[in-house]
């Protein structure tokens, strides 16, 4: 039945001059569908990494300890003001090469291109999360923090139970926005031959010269992921909303 539907679709698209013939060739469709899976996997791994690292960076930035805030602030500025693709190239061609050397040959190196894409995009977006969360943490009224200290909360407990929960709420729109950018960033994986959806599509259009057709699908695919992401963001925002706090 699916076969029949695909055949009908290819015929209909052909009528309006769009060539989706590759959908009928299993050897081309399989890596392409796998590419979509790889993109989803990249996104699903990079999102938690970016959130965890973002919270850690924000905690360091607002810790009030110069030896902790200083290097993290420097990292945040470096990351935000250099292209992610260059960071990925640097990580893959320089850091990965050094690692391979240290471990005695590329065969012993457990870090794959896939790993580097998750690490670089996740840590890049973490810097943006950290800025959003820092703003939220600093926006918590000082009296609230002082009260928490007064009833015996340690600095960590103040962060864990008072400032961070409130900061998460104010930073939610910015965080969702960053995550949408993260999804788009995963496409740079194609630069180091990670078989995500862009890379898989390049493989097809170099053979068949049907760039426009694949482009439409890619844009729909990313549009779909980002719509779902925004909806989840909006749902979480509504669920977490504290009546009377913030705007």
């Amino acid at each position, binding site marked *: 039945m699916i076969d029949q539907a695909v055949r009908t679709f290819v015929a209909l698209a052909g009528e309006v001059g769009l060539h989706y013939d590759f959908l009928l060739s299993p050897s081309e469709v399989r890596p392409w569908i796998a590419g979509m899976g790889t993109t989803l996997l990249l996104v699903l791994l990079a999102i938690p990494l970016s959130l965890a690292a973002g919270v850690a960076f924000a905690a360091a930035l607002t810790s009030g300890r*110069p*030896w902790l*805030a*200083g*290097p993290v*602030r*420097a990292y945040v*500025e*470096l990351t*935000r*003001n*250099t*292209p*992610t*693709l*260059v*960071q990925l*190239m*640097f990580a893959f*061609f*320089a850091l990965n*090469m*050094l690692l391979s*050397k240290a471990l005695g040959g590329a065969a012993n190196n457990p870090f794959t291109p896939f790993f580097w894409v998750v690490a670089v995009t996740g840590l890049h977006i973490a810097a943006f999360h950290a800025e959003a969360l820092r703003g939220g943490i600093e926006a918590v009224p000082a009296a609230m923090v002082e009260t928490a200290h007064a009833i015996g909360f340690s600095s960590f407990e103040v962060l864990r139970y008072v400032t961070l929960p409130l900061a998460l709420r104010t930073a939610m729109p910015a965080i969702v926005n960053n995550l*949408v950018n993260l999804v*788009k*960033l995963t*496409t*740079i994986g*194609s*630069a180091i031959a990670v078989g995500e959806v*862009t890379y898989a599509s*390049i493989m097809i*259009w170099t053979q068949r010269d049907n*760039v*426009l057709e694949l*482009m439409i699908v*890619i*844009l729909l695919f*990313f*549009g779909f992921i*980002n*719509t779902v992401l925004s909806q989840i963001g909006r749902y979480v925002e509504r669920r977490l909303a504290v009546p009377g706090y913030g705007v």
Partner: protein
Amino acid sequence: MSTAALPARGRAALGPAWAWLALVAAGFLLWTVLDARLARDLLDWLPYLASGFAMNILISVLAMSAGTLAGVTLGAMELSASRLVRAPAVAYVQVFRNAPHLVLIFATTYIFPFEIVVAGNYLPFPDWLKAVFGLAIPASAYVAEIVRGAIQSVPTTQWDAAKGVGMSRGQTLRWIILPQCLRRALPPWMNLYASITMSTALASLVGVHELLHAATDASTAVRRDDFTIAVYLTVLAAFFLFCFPISRLTRRLERRFAPR
């Protein structure tokens, strides 16, 4: 009183980070100074790398100019009273804000022809110009949102108030509305410029001779590990030195224009 305190706090926020950024830069400089061969190779390749970076800046300026022109139009269309005008602009912005820049660069590179015919003359349509269009598309979508937000941020009652004191529509626009819109729009517009500049590195993946492409050329020509590391660090440094001042200035403007 509070306005005087604000910039000082902003500068203090970066305080210890300056020391760390300086430390990173000093470490890199020291490394190249101590290793004479590396320094010589880097200096040899520097003009080639610089010509690459000039391309990055050219692409970013052209893409941003085209994106701003189209974006202002789209932003105005988004606020039109007619749905027929509004709907296509809203759809365009929605689609291209969600589209990865890399995908758009691939799209324009492969879909546009390699030459165009103007009045019987064959004009070449080089890849770098296609990359300009590839980045102008998302830039226009973002500018449209910036413009829409800036115009909406001015309460409509100000039009009525200006009319009340005897100003014409043109005068109101020129002296009351536009100055406020510009203040709202300038910081995000500058952020967008920095972001588009960083995205120009993506053009290397479609074979445009820009900085990252030049660095890859240099690294494959010299074929030495220390040089590979140094040359990619140079690329990072070039983008940082260009984008960081823009982002500092943006933050300063944001603070100055912040509604109080």
